């Protein structure tokens, strides 16, 4: 039996959806993009020019929900399937859009540069339980106008896994699409084998900015998957109650579903989000707060109810160092996410809300992901009945260490974490250097970077990626891209 977590009953889900529809019908969304407004108007939405709001007929919303696919697959740069975003399948991806990295040598958070992102991409490529890469943080040594596309460029150059990403401007989507086309060859092939997921964030409350609405439409046109990242802040930019903010999240997300499905019926989307508690004591948005994690799990129940695959920013931490808080918040989030069957879980590697990426934390979080993946495989009998013969064998042999039953099931029944997780007895731990978690994680980072093997993407494709990116950099006043380690 697959273990499962449930916060909302069916009646409450239906009420929340109904209230969200009511918001869309009566208050509508503020949409700052003319193409999006025109598209909605063409399909029967009412546009109140004076208030700048678009109200949606309820039927339009439910028709869009019907058209949204119940799942989709992702493929790596080589075209091999890596993700099955259906049902309760769980896939982890590093947190994204950080603005600092935790420097292991100095213990301080600093502004990242190109080689930080190169190394993070290499490290992600080696994480067994993290199946996607993400454009985890920006590199500060390139012009602001290309910082979004440059992240994707480095990911596609150094890693093979599919990429969770996003554009900061309307213009940069074009290059990001060209980079993907360079990898896949043709638009048709890219649509058939999605390589990326673009995050598209409505603005709380009940608004789509020009940029994000246009990104949504562009992704839909190219059948590039999107994750809607609605972010009500409980008690600030959203009702203080979890149910109240769920209504807002549902309305904002459904409006996104409508835009995507009107633009290209059947295009792949994830019912995602990053809602957060708002800690009025510090004026911060704690991602490790239990209410944040609860609302994440709850909205994905709504997504599942609507038949749309899900995503959440969970399994990350507000801690400022790789400490016990980092571990407890990340583990709790990952556990709840897995039990909720969230299809794409964004967060591993992240600290300081959604601001900082730590290589060492990614290594630790990879172990957390491995543990929870084992957990959701659940408990199943495996040649355990009738029980007596095995017990007879144990009494006869004195132990079961080499029993056929043990040999057959040991490695599937038990998950063995890597050397980051300390399980030796005290004297052995002492003999091996009395290391802390941080020291072991750092050692693992170094080992993985040393053992990294370059992406198998053909050299001519890599060359094309470099040419595309270099040309874009030149357009923005940078003659030569920063030097990269090989």
């Amino acid at each position, binding site marked *: 039996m697959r273990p499962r977590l449930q916060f909302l009953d069916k009646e409450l889900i239906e009420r929340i959806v109904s209230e969200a529809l009511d918001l869309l019908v009566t208050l509508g969304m503020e949409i700052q993009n003319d193409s999006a407004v025109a598209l909605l108007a063409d399909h029967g939405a009412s546009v109140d020019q004076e208030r700048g709001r678009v109200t949606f007929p309820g039927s339009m919303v439910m028709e869009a929900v019907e058209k949204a696919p119940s799942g989709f697959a992702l493929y790596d740069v080589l075209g091999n399937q890596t993700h099955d975003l259906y049902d309760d399948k769980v896939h982890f991806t590093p947190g994204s859009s950080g603005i600092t990295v935790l420097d292991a040598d100095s213990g301080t958070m600093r502004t990242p540069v190109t080689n930080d992102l190169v190394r993070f991409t290499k490290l992600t490529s080696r994480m067994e339980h993290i199946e996607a890469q993400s454009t985890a943080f920006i590199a500060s040594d390139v012009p602001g106008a290309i910082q979004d596309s440059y992240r994707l460029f480095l990911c596609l150059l150094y890693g093979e896994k599919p990429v969770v990403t996003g554009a900061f401007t309307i213009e940069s989507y074009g290059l990001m699409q060209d980079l993907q086309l360079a990898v896949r060859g043709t638009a048709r092939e890219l649509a058939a084998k999605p390589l990326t997921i673009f995050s598209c964030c409505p603005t709380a409350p009940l608004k789509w900015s020009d940029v994000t609405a246009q990104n949504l439409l562009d992704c839909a046109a190219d059948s590039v998957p999107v994750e809607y990242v609605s972010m009500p802040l409980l008690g600030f930019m959203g009702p203080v109650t979890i149910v109240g903010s769920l209504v807002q999240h549902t309305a904002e997300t459904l409006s996104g579903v409508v835009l995507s499905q009107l633009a290209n019926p059947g295009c792949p989307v994830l019912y995602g989000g990053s809602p957060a508690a708002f800690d009025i004591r510090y004026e911060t948005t704690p991602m490790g707060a239990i209410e944040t994690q609860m609302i994440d799990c709850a909205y994905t129940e709504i997504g599942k109810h609507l038949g749309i695959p899900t995503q959440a920013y969970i399994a990350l931490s507000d801690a400022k160092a790789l400490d016990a808080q980092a571990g407890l918040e990340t583990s709790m989030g990952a556990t709840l996410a897995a039990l909720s069957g969230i299809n794409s879980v964004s967060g591993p590697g992240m600290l300081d809300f959604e601001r900082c990426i730590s290589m060492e934390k990614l290594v630790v979080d990879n172990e957390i992901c491995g543990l929870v993946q084992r957990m959701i495989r659940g408990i199943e009998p495996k040649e355990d009945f009738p029980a007596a013969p095995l017990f007879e064998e144990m009494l006869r042999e004195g132990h079961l260490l*080499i029993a056929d039953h043990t*040999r057959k099931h040991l490695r599937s029944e038990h998950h063995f974490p890597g050397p980051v997780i300390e399980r030796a*007895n005290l*004297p*052995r731990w002492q003999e091996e250097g009395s290391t802390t978690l941080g020291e072991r994680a750092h050692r693992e980072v170094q080992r993985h970077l040393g053992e990294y093997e370059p992406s198998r993407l053909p050299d001519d494709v890599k060359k094309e990626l470099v040419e595309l990116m270099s040309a874009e950099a030149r357009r923005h006043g940078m003659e030569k891209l920063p030097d990269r380690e090989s």
Partner: protein
Amino acid sequence: MEILEQIAARLERGEDQEVRSLTQSAMDQSLPAPKILAEGLLAGMQVVGDRFRAHEIFLPEVLLAARAMSAGVEILEPHLGKTDLHSRGKVVIGTVKGDLHDIGKNLVGIMLSGAGFEVIDLGKDVSPQQFVDTARESGADVIGMSALLTTTMPAMKQVISLLKEQGLDSSVRTMIGGAPVTGDYAREIGADGYGFDAANAVESARELVG
């Protein structure tokens, strides 16, 4: 692949039947038994030990390899000199007087046997006299003592004292282990070796028999 390499490879995979028949084939080809032992069976066992220490394989694989080793040794035994075969040594093990915890001690016994030692397991609640008498009568190289309780640990020292009294401390070495036992404690009571877990106990035993 050369037959000795095949023996080593099959042994690494714990395939006792195959190791037995390949060892027989090697004998049929008139290869010398000590060579088959050293370059086939023990060479495979060496790889298994290295991989175990590197966490690449686990206890069950080691024990299976040990079982495969025994299967090969059975074939070779009539053709080997006494020194070839018992080169690993003989160890008397037991949980000390007053202590009834034997899971750790049992694991040490299994591992020592797997590593080619001859093991005499006296069980639990073993008196100092029993340890010393058995070691003398069997000609053991090592006495291995286990305790789980801090209250029973002093019995280890009594065994060491008794060995001295009887003039056996030069021929019989001692090693200790168990949850509350530390390397410092081993040095304090004059034990010759200490194992912090079963695999480490095997390494200690190897060092003691040189």
